[in-house]
């Protein structure tokens, strides 16, 4: 007797990643040999002292359980269930959670999986940090890799697509998601970490991670850090000169509490584009302090992961996931690319006219775990990132400190 366990409705090992939002899964009898009637099975997590933890649900909004009893039809029809990570118990490495299916004491099958969420960069374990920088360096591939398209997406010429209007937050959410999925194609265990710019992050600005700046603003890396081979626009290295003491101080920004208190309407919260967002960028000299060059520095993506996390926290606090709710987004028409029904450049491939002359990078990268937001996302697709309103809207990422419900 054998079973097939599908995570995120897929048998692909690359789909074995869950977060706080419920992931649709199923189990079925793939070989009923030895069984003469429907088989009663129990799903549970194999005990482990460390690493991720998951819970089981009958339905997306059913209560979470440590084990789940299901009856598997002899004919092999799949029986659906849902898996969620236990908030606060994310994985630290790939496959550190094992889900077992038992019939009585007999283990019919098991799969390893990971509770993969975006974490505070200052708190990553050394292996988590190393996997992230290795994937990023690989994607840059000494300036010849896929990262070049991402660098080209965020410039002065393309800025109107992404800044100074309501689409600021959705556009950057798509941008980060696209990059994260590219990194996951290199190493599935990687999630984009975030830089909490309102707190000191001594572990981030080190030679082993994003590098240490000298007084000239040249960033230095450890000889074992592959980011030493970072190249953008044909020039090796990174320029970044912090105007604050990275080991003991935060950037010159308003706090998280102040940001979340900007208001419960999207138009009010959007003020965060200036402070903390703009002030986080300009707390440094170097590439990151100008729109045209900011994306040359890997720190850009950690900074924006925190901007996105703040939006996610705000959405959770005020229930602002539903695009149909006026307070979730700006009211009234904005320029193209900044309205809920608009497609977003460059993923829409549209060039010329009101859009930039070129559209680097092609479609938004697909995920093995979720189907949203599709290859050519619209602004509205970026709001319900956890699938809180519609489960199929889930974008496949979560933050370590933003609950699902």
């Amino acid at each position, binding site marked *: 007797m054998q079973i097939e366990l599908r995570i995120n409705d897929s048998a692909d090992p690359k789909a074995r990643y869950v977060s706080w939002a419920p992931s649709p899964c199923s189990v079925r009898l793939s070989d009923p040999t030895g069984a003469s009637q429907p088989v009663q099975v129990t799903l549970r997590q194999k005990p482990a002292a460390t690493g991720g933890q998951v819970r089981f649900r009958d339905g997306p909004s059913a209560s979470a359980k440590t084990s789940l009893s299901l009856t598997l039809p002899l004919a092999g029809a799949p029986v659906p269930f849902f898996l969620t990570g236990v908030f606060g118990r994310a994985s630290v490495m790939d496959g550190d959670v094992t889900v077992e299916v038992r019939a009585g004491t007999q283990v019919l099958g098991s799969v390893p999986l990971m509770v993969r969420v975006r974490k505070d960069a200052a708190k990553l374990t050394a292996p988590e940090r190393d996997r992230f920088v*290795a994937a990023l*360096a*690989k994607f840059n*591939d*000494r*300036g*010849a890799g896929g990262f070049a398209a991402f660098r080209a997406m965020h410039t*002065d010429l393309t*800025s*109107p697509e992404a*800044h*100074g*209007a309501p689409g600021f937050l959705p556009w950057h959410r798509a941008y980060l998601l696209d990059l994260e999925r590219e990194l996951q194609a290199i190493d599935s265990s990687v999630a984009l970490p975030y830089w909490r710019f309102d707190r000191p992050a001594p572990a981030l600005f080190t030679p082993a991670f994003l590098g240490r700046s*000298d007084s*000239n*603003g*040249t960033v230095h890396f*450890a*000889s*074992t*850090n*592959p980011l*030493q*081979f970072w*190249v953008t*626009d*044909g*020039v*090796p*290295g990174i*320029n970044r000169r912090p105007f604050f003491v990275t080991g003991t101080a935060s950037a*010159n920004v*308003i706090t998280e509490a102040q940001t979340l208190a900007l*208001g419960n*309407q999207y*138009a*009010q919260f959007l*003020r965060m*584009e*200036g*402070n903390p*967002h*703009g*002030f986080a*960028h*300009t*707390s440094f*000299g*170097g*590439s990151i*302090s*100008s*729109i*045209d*060059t900011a994306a040359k520095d890997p720190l850009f993506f950690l900074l924006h992961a925190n901007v996105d996390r703040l939006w996610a926290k705000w959405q959770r606090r005020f229930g602002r996931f539903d695009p149909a709710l006026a307070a979730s987004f700006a*009211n009234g028409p904005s*320029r193209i690319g900044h309205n809920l029904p608009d497609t977003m450049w460059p993923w829409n491939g549209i060039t010329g006219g009101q859009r930039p002359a070129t559209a680097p990078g092609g479609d938004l990268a697909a995920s093995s775990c979720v189907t949203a937001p599709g290859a050519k996302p619209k602004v509205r697709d970026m709001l319900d990132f956890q699938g809180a309103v519609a489960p199929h809207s889930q974008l496949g990422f979560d933050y370590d400190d933003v609950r699902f419900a």
Partner: protein
Amino acid sequence: MGAMRTRKKATARKASKTKRRSRPKGKAKPKRKAGAHAAAARGSYAALAAAALDPGLGVRQRIRALADLSGEICDDTGTFHGVLDILRDAKSPSGLRLAALQALQAATFSAVKFSRSRPEYLTALRAVAADPDLELRQRVLGLLARERDGSTQQKLLDGLKNPAKALVPPEKALQLLGYDVHADAYPVARRIVRDPPNPAAKREALRLLAADAASAPVFEEILRNKAEPAEFRQLSVSVLHSLAPRSLQAHAREMVLDDTEDDDLRAAGLTALTQFGEQGAITADAALVQRVDRLKGGKGSAMVKKGARRFLDKYRP
């Protein structure tokens, strides 16, 4: 200066009036709907603008107000001009001018909203590009260099050719020219590599030459010269990998096999092989794999051992 002060006061007065106007008369506590929030916010920004521009307030208070103004600086022409005035005023405290610059910079991230203010902003930056305050000058030149400002690039180049004209140290000038590399910077960069005023200038000159295929022999020479500091040789490895990606494996292999090589270079070579090496060729390279295995348990630095462990995890799992 007198005219500037008058404008500041006028802006402060205007901001103060805006604040008063935002309070609806005859209603003690209006409902906090979106419109009311917006009105309250406008009042609050006007008060912040007034504080930021008020020379009678303390510097800290004004700096805080500039930060809180956030992206709204260019919403009001008077406020925008007032902040530009702070930036240009050499008699203002340095910290206040830097705060004004940061607030303006942060506003540039709202690119479309900022677009109409941009020409004046750039003019103001150019006006302080030779300011006596080195920190301010350096930040402003960085901003202009990232804007690919031709006159700034020329000034930086002139300073490298004639140090008496230099606005910033050579290593900073070279770094800033790297934001928009032009071939006319290559001769001066090569000269600085040959005869550097300091090690940082040599490093920045090498980075600038990284896109210049004709400079490949310079990097080859540095890489082969063990008397050169490890930092330059490491940078040469990186640059040669960019100029000629296929050379990576050969250079890195050579460094890893060489027992007289610097530990940092060996660790960098191991990192390069692990990260960018061709799986098939390296797995089949028994001599290399065996040597790395010895490095893992040898007397080398912790970095070499770490690099060796990662190499073996990948190529000999």
